[in-house]
């Protein structure tokens, strides 16, 4: 059969089945009625389609009964309970993780605080050590009240011997 003829037959077959299924609009259905009236082969095919369709009623229908309903509902309940349990486990895992994470953060914060305080206190001690000579002689420095005089005394080596003695 040539391709255009095959396509034409396919189109008629589609129209025929749609006609039987009540899927044609009123206008298309009337056109198909007219075609049927003038085409005996098409009428025969329609009859065969109807018979085939009716034969499908011979198929046994499934009847699974109450037991199926019961097991299905139970299976769904078990599955949902399992989901809830899983969700609970996930929440617990998340809580556990939160505690661990919180602990780690606290440890890091404590370490950072310790480091900060240590560095601050060390810095102030270093300043005290640096200023030790001044602090030791603060009363004398206050009594002199002239920085140029003190520098002159330092150049003379007066403080050096005292510090060495002090050490």
């Amino acid at each position, binding site marked *: 059969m040539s391709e255009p003829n095959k396509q034409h037959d*396919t189109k008629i*077959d*589609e129209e*025929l*089945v*749609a006609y*039987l*299924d009540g*899927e044609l609009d009123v206008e298309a259905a009337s056109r198909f009625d007219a075609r049927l009236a003038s085409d005996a082969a098409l009428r025969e*095919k329609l009859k*065969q*389609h109807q*018979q*085939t*369709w009716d*034969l*499908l009623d*011979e*198929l*046994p*229908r*499934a*009847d*699974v009964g109450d037991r*199926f*309903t019961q*097991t*299905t*509902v139970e*299976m*769904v*309940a078990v*599955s*949902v309970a399992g989901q809830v349990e899983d969700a609970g486990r996930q929440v617990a895992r998340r809580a556990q993780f939160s505690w661990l994470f919180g602990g780690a953060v606290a440890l890091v914060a404590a370490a950072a605080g310790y480091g900060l305080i240590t560095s601050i206190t060390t810095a102030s001690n270093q300043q005290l050590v640096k200023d030790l000579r001044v602090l030791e002689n603060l009363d004398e420095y206050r009594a002199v009240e002239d920085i140029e005089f003190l520098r002159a005394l330092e150049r003379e080596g007066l403080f050096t011997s005292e510090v060495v003695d002090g050490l």
Partner: protein
Amino acid sequence: MSVSESSIHKYELLDPDVRLMLQVRDDDAAAFEELVLRYQNRVVGIMTHLTRKREQAEDLAQEVFLRVYRARKRYTPDAKFSTWLFTIANNIALNAKRSSARRREVNIGSNASNDDSPPALDQMALEASGLMPTRQLDKAERAEMVRLAIEALPERQRVALLLSKFENMSYIEIAATMEMTVQATKSLLSRARENLRVILEPYMQDGASPAEAAD
């Protein structure tokens, strides 16, 4: 009111199963049980034709209802409930078929093909003729003959045919269920029914087997 909202309202009003499903969405266990009761035979029936194994069909049907329950919170009634349910059923059947193919448990004969190739008429006739001596067929034999004819159809044709025949679905509903266009559905159903007609033609003539009809 938007189109979507009016559509939802329409299905809620017209389809009692949509209203039941909305109760399931609100965690009403009794409504779920009622839905299972209403649809279990229909889902098992379709699955039996698709898998050819009753036990597997029941397992898959239970999987369908489990999916329905799990999806309850996302449910929006934008179609008839049966359309939504059989979309899930169709997807589960396809997934099961793919899994079976991966496990190489299916026959690779033409009966199991998923394309639209012509049904294996000779094989089907051979199987069926073993059932039938030269006489009128009784009811059980006719049922077996029709079952074999349905099984001889490519899978998508079979699904469309079963939804049309046993679920009384319109082309629009079948298209939505099988995720295809309405025109493709029309074409698929036409091929399905034509193939079925060709397979069953010998039986329809005098109710005899193909062998007898050929004599």
